[in-house]
């Protein structure tokens, strides 16, 4: 059943997809943490005209020439981006959007020109739009592997500067690091990652491969190193699975499949990661609920009413939730059932309110007096 693992084409696909996953996962972490998620998108779209020009100049669809073209136009986009944000009043997001659409428009025009020119050599160039993993040849893997090894080595060597600049660029500058050069360097590396993935994932969806593994890994990890390693694993898993699925299903582009899997991993992480996931967080708040007695909540309402000098003071449910850091509605409903609290209306634009009933007020007063007696006793018998 695992016979397909020995299939030559599939081997190529899996190795290539793993390489893409690792490099885009690792470098994407920096983009995610620096809040430059759109950077990968811009660089991949900007690489398309480079791919076309590489083809036009060399005349064949060789991996090296297309990568070189993509790299050159990616770097030009990087420089243009820096020039636009530094010398005009454009903000980063606007500059990114402009370069993204400009690059893609230029790329599509060139692509159409090449296709209309005809000839067997242009076959498959349009797979750069959505990616075609099955077209990966063994010879394509070597330049990819070299770039990935080169990029990972740079991350290891420049670990401290990259980390410091990602966390606190101003402090990095004070520590004497060439921050602007490092920024250019990091953007250039992300361009490299994009170039590696272009053929298999395509320019349109490559950004998801840069962002999704990093965003997913962030949910599980407490250190930058851990996040980078996990992002590499997530990226490789998404790449390999997506590559294999698309290679087995004729006509299915690789990019969309890879991105669907990477997004599923990210979604799962956002929901279920133990510390930061939405669902564990919700359960922790619910759990705390079990340890908070409804009497304490009643006393809070009582204290609030006393502070406002009004026993029928209406407390907004959101205020009680905020005070306890959890959803207190079940406790409030229980108190209402015991006849100690009553639901009340206040401003129409505010949430539900609660006020003490006559019984509730008396019960809370006796509980409050009891608590004060206990407290005095404890203090009297405790250490001085």
């Amino acid at each position: 059943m695992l016979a397909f693992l020995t299939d030559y084409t599939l081997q190529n696909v899996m190795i290539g997809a793993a390489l893409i996953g690792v490099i885009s996962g690792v470098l994407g972490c920096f983009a995610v943490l620096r809040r430059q998620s759109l950077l990968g998108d811009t660089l991949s779209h900007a690489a398309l005209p480079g791919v076309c020009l590489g083809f036009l100049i060399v005349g064949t669809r060789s991996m090296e020439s297309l990568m070189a073209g993509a790299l050159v136009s990616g770097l030009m986009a990087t420089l243009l981006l820096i020039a636009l944000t530094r010398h005009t009043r454009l903000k980063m997001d606007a500059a990114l959007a402009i370069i993204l659409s400009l690059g893609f428009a230029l790329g599509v025009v060139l692509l159409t020109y090449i296709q209309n020119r005809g000839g067997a050599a242009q076959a498959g160039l349009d797979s750069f739009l959505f990616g075609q993993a099955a077209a990966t040849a063994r010879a394509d893997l070597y330049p990819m592997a070299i770039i990935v090894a080169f990029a990972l080595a740079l991350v290891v060597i420049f670990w401290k500067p990259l980390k410091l600049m990602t966390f606190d660029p101003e402090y990095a500058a004070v520590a004497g690091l060439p921050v602007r050069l490092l920024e250019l360097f990091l953007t250039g590396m992300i361009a490299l990652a994009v170039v590696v993935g272009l053929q298999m994932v395509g320019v349109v969806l490559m950004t998801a491969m840069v962002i999704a593994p990093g965003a997913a890994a962030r949910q599980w990890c407490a250190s930058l190193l851990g996040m980078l390693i996990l992002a590499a694993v997530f990226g490789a898993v998404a790449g390999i699975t997506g590559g294999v699925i698309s290679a087995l299903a004729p006509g299915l582009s690789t990019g969309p499949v890879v991105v669907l899997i990477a997004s599923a991993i990210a979604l799962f992480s956002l929901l279920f990661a133990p510390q930061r996931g939405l669902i564990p967080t919700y359960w922790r708040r619910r759990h705390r609920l079990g340890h908070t007695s409804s009497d304490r909540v009643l006393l809070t309402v009582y204290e609030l009413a006393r502070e406002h000098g009004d026993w029928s003071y209406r407390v907004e449910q959101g205020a009680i939730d905020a005070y306890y850091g959890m959803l207190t509605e079940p406790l409030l409903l229980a108190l209402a059932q015991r006849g100690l609290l009553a639901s009340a209306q206040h401003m129409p634009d505010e949430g539900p309110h609660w006020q003490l009933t006559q019984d509730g007020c008396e019960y809370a007063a006796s509980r409050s007096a009891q608590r004060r007696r206990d407290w005095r006793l404890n203090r009297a018998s405790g250490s001085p």
Partner: protein
Amino acid sequence: MTEPTGDELDHDPNIALHVEDLIVSYGDRPALWDIDLDIPAGVMAGVIGPNGAGKSTLIKSVLGLVKISAGHSRLFGQPSVTQAHRVGYVPQRSTVDWDFPTTAVDVVTMGLYGQMKWWRWPGRHERDRALRALEQVGMEALADRQISELSGGQQQRVFIARALVQAPDILLLDEPMAGVDATTERQIIELLRRLRDEGRSVIVVHHDLQTVQRYFDWLVFLNVRIIAAGPLDEVYTANNLRRAYGGQVALLDEAQAESQSEHQSNARLSD
């Protein structure tokens, strides 16, 4: 300290921070105008002034973080850029993303990155030094806590520890008391006093006028220009307070008028 009278004295190593003719401009508006300042070594100095007075800009210009239009600054008589290793900088807490995946001790270790060979990874030795710095600010128990789980005051103390780990001769702090509770504020000020008593120079951008007298022994009144600077008991006067805080608009206008009239500013420079 006496006013510098010649080139020799300009580079007095006993002057922790010397600023001369400094002008910084953001776009069409000067943020700092013609700053001349000497803060002696071993004092705890407060830089005070209203919002937009250029307090942070003054510190950043010394650190080389903003472009200087004119003038220069010296730390211990040497050009500031060459003295980066002697400076501990504590930026405003809001300048970084506290959701970054890292621990308190790791952030403090980053304070050593500038001193380490650039390709070396931090190890045991660096961690031990970072832990000692955390101990100084009373945070050793929280060393391995995620920074996102720290309170505002704890985050501030981590930042101070990051500056202390380099064993700096001069500390520059940008509003370290902003958004911390009263207990933390007291801890921070006691720590800074201790550092001052050890002979370090401490310069604090400060916002709260009520505590100025208790905290500092040297004051700089800043409002785009230097209003007054010197020992607390000499310069902490109602008149200086009024000049720094009262006439903000008037001073700005004056500075701009001056920049248009070369004659006038030349006359001032030769004062």
